[in-house]
């Protein structure tokens, strides 16, 4: 009992802490104790790597499942000959890159394929065949026996209905239940997923909830009919890392309380390590490897699995594993640091008299108000310096203002207060002529390569545009420069006449980098350049980035929400939180001995792709949150009221 208690308790505190809702826990403990009893009754340990689940009869048996799409007069396979089982209380993770067929094969279980898709083979849910069911038969299965948690809670919840209405609707479709009873059940469900003040939240619209709360509401809706099988399609991909940690905790908590099988579709190995009992690795529509989480992570057999695991940036890989244990460690430095080529000593920044590439003092950036809407202060008085040739990582959650800083540095947003100097030139109140000159020395790589390249221009023209507009090159010389740039980012010269839609995501981002380098800038702003890419593609783009940085020696502000990526590249790290810089300093210090509470929380929330290590980190994170909560309990009368 002590074991289950220790796992379950922090979750209520998490919700208490982050959502500041004291009433949420009022009935919570009772429910949880019950849940623990139920799972105990099944003789099932509460810990993640539970071998006992393997002995139950599977609720989902998939045999020879295939999904085809009709394209251009022929059937192209998206998933081929899949076999797997899901048992009650078990989490099966399906891992693969985009286009590997992981989502489509799972959606085919519910008959949710596009019109030009078809499923074949067999998938039995508790003995009942799902493939080939009629539309009507399927709707009785959907929601009731198989429920789905979608990736993007904002689009999956209907914005014109309250959260409660949507749960009640699900309930009343499948059960003969009165409106009052359904509402009571909806409140109960919202409490189950730790939504703060469930009695009030039930009448809220999706836009009135935060991203994490919306995802909780969606999980509540999915759980409404006690489904036998829960399909979670990238449930945390759209969320910030700290919110992701909370949702993962909720899901881990839930699987001990409800007795359904969970199919987790994800590309994030950290999430898999945190949650999964068994793992399926998919590639090109086929299962290349299947096994327990322990086997996949520690003894991968297939080369693709190994490649996939190698590609995942691992927080703490550079500064030494033991050091970054949830930001609590104080262990001595390991030799890992010297192995990384980018961590060159930053000489120029310290040299007296040298002009830093970027120097911000009390920088304030506002989005102007419109009509009665007041101006929004996105960045509120930050100090940041980037020396020549230095790579500084800027991390933070979405909405922390990190992208705003990057856009202001290239003059896409005006500086509202304080000062920002780019190569010694003041950006505050700059005229358009001077801005044009400054943009010769500063460039930006955008987050989404699909959106940042003009779809109607061949990529060669996109790359050459800065040169052409500055009249630096023309005709044959311009052609040569474009070819040089393509060589530098390892793209074939023949690709210059292609259009962006013909390239893959990784190739497009290479084009974005080539364009940013066209003028040989002294400062490069990289705004989450890899967040839209698959892990293995991300790994190669990061390699390329490091190589180019070594060659050209430009200074770089590397903006990312992913601490593991920033760790690989930067020599210094600044952590942004709500428009201010919470902490900045050398990489090793930030990762190993963070001083600020927020930095510590952020570090602790990052899941690492190793089940054993992740378990340690998880427990450390729970301790951290407990400590913080205890500290708050002393100072805050609010928490005392609970």
């Amino acid at each position, binding site marked *: 009992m002590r074991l289950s208690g220790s796992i379950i308790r922090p979750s209520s505190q998490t919700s208490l802490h982050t959502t500041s809702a004291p009433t949420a826990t009022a009935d919570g403990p009772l429910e949880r104790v019950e849940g623990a009893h139920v799972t105990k009754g099944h003789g099932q340990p509460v810990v993640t790597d539970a071998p006992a689940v393997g002995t139950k009869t599977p609720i989902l048996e998939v045999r020879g499942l295939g999904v085809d*799409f*009709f*394209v*251009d*007069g*022929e*059937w192209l396979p*998206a998933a081929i000959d899949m076999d797997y089982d899901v048992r009650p209380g078990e989490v099966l993770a399906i891992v693969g*890159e*985009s*286009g590997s067929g992981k989502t489509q094969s799972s959606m085919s279980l519910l008959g949710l394929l596009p*019109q*030009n898709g*078809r499923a074949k083979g067999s998938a039995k849910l508790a003995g009942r065949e799902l493939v080939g069911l009629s539309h009507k038969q399927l709707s009785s299965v959907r929601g009731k026996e198989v429920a789905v948690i979608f990736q993007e809670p904002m689009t999956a919840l209907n914005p014109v209905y309250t959260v409660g209405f949507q749960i009640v609707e699900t309930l009343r479709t499948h059960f003969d239940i009165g409106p009052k009873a359904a509402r009571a059940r909806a409140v109960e469900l919202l409490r189950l997923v730790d939504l703060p003040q469930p009695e009030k939240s039930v009448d809220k619209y999706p836009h009135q909830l935060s991203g994490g709360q919306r995802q909780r509401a969606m999980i509540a809706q999915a759980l409404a009919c006690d489904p036998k099988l829960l399909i979670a399609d990238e449930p945390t991909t759209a969320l910030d890392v700290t919110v992701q940690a909370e949702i993962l905790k909720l899901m881990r908590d839930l699987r001990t309380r409800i007795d359904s099988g969970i199919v987790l579709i994800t590309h994030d190995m950290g999430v898999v390590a945190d949650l999964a009992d068994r793992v399926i690795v998919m590639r*090109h529509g086929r299962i290349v490897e299947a096994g327990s989480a322990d086997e996949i992570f520690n003894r991968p057999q297939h080369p693709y699995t190994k*490649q996939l695991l190698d590609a995942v940036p691992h927080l703490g890989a550079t500064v030494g594993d033991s050091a970054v244990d949830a930001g609590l460690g104080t262990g001595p430095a390991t030799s890992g640091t010297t192995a990384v080529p980018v961590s060159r000593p930053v000489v120029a920044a310290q040299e007296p008299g040298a002009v830093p590439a970027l120097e911000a003092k009390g920088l304030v950036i506002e989005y102007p108000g419109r009509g009665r809407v007041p101006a929004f202060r996105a960045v509120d008085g930050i100090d940041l310096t980037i020396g020549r040739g230095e790579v500084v990582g800027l991390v933070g959650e979405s909405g922390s203002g990190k992208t705003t800083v990057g*856009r202001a540095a290239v*003059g*896409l947003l005006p500086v509202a207060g304080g000062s920002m100097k780019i190569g010694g030139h003041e950006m505050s109140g700059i005229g358009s002529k001077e801005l*044009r000159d400054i*943009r*010769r020395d500063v*460039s*930006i790589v*955008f*987050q*989404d390569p699909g*959106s*940042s*390249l*003009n*779809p*109607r*221009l061949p990529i060669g023209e*996109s790359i050459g*545009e*800065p040169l052409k*507009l*500055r009249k630096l090159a023309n005709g044959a010389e311009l052609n040569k420069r474009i070819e040089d740039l393509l*060589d530098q980012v*390892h*793209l*074939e*010269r023949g*690709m210059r006449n*292609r*259009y962006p*839609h*013909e390239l*893959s*995501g*990784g*190739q497009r981002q290479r084009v*974005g980098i080539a*364009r940013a380098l*066209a003028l040989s800038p002294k400062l490069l702003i990289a705004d989450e350049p890899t967040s839209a890419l*698959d892990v*293995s*593609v991300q790994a*190669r783009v990061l390699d390329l980035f490091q190589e180019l940085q070594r060659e050209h020696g430009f200074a770089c502000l590397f903006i990312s929400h992913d601490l593991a990526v920033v760790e690989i590249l930067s020599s210094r790290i600044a952590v942004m939180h709500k428009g201010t810089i919470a902490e900045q300093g050398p990489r090793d210090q930030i990762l190993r001995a963070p001083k600020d509470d927020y930095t510590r929380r952020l570090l602790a929330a990052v899941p690492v792709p190793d089940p054993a290590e992740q378990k340690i980190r998880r427990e450390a994170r729970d301790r951290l949150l407990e400590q913080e909560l205890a500290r708050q309990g002393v100072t805050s009368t609010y928490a005392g009221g609970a």
Partner: protein
Amino acid sequence: MTTSTPLSPQGGEHHDAVETNENALELKEVEGLSQGRIVLRRFLRHRGAMAGAVVLAIVVVLATTSIGWGPIPGWWKYTPTQLLPVENAGGSPTLSFGDGITIGNHPMGQDNVGHDVFARVMRGTQQSLLVMVVIGLLATTIGIVIGALAGFLRGRLDNLLMRFTDMVITIPTIMIGAILGAWVGGASPITLAIALSLVTWTSMARLVRGEFLSLREREFVDAARVAGASNGRIMFKHMLPNAVGVIIVNTTLLMASAILLETALSYLGFGIVAPDVSLGQLINEYQTAFATRPWLFWWPGLFIVIIALCVNFIGDGLRDAFDPRQRRIPTRRSMARAARREAASTAVRVDVRG
């Protein structure tokens, strides 16, 4: 699954497979084609639009070659203004389907003074098409410039231009057209077309503005700005080609409505006036003969309907071709056929192996 050529040697060998396969399925449809080629291919597949384009081409060729264009003579024996002896009783058409098709001297009949209706309808078609094309081009240009400026620069200029647009919209087009038509009345069809263009650009301006408002939030606009592009270049080199789908579609629909507008004005007597003819003017002239000589009314009417329908069909086809989200949903039959073929081929393979 060959979506792209392999990367250069430095790119690494095992990288290629992953990267090219990343979105192989989605790319299968657009492999190696530029955006323009894809649009063309989708347009050519659109049956309604292709039928419309063919019929319209036939009408244009017939109208221009039969009675000639300007000084160039045509192959038809009569001109629209020639007065001829009335052949059949009351001038009814000589076209008949009795035994085989007989065309005769006046396939569409004659009016009471002896004009050949075929020649007049051809002349009317020429004039109406001319008005249609001029309105299409001019109104589109005005609409694009006003919409682009309003959408890109926003702020006060946007307000000013959009209120002006609203003002033009609130006044009934047919009324302005009538006033302008009366001003320049009796003048050439080109003048009429220019006058009408000045009141029909509004929907184009609003659409382009809307498109520009969403395009300017796209990152490639910021990227162009960082690259040092001027506002004019961003507007016309970067944003306009991305709005071209909306523009072309709206232009065709505008042309279809322009031909009806010209017809209506001419019918009311404000457009092209005698002795010159347009399709609307012909209907106007012959409206009193509707009961006694219906052919005078039906033939020009038929051509108006044909032209308007064709242009609308082409517009529909273009809209579908430019909208990448619109996937052609294959028919059940073609899907089943492919499945049978696949089954047959695997069976053969098994046989060979066995």
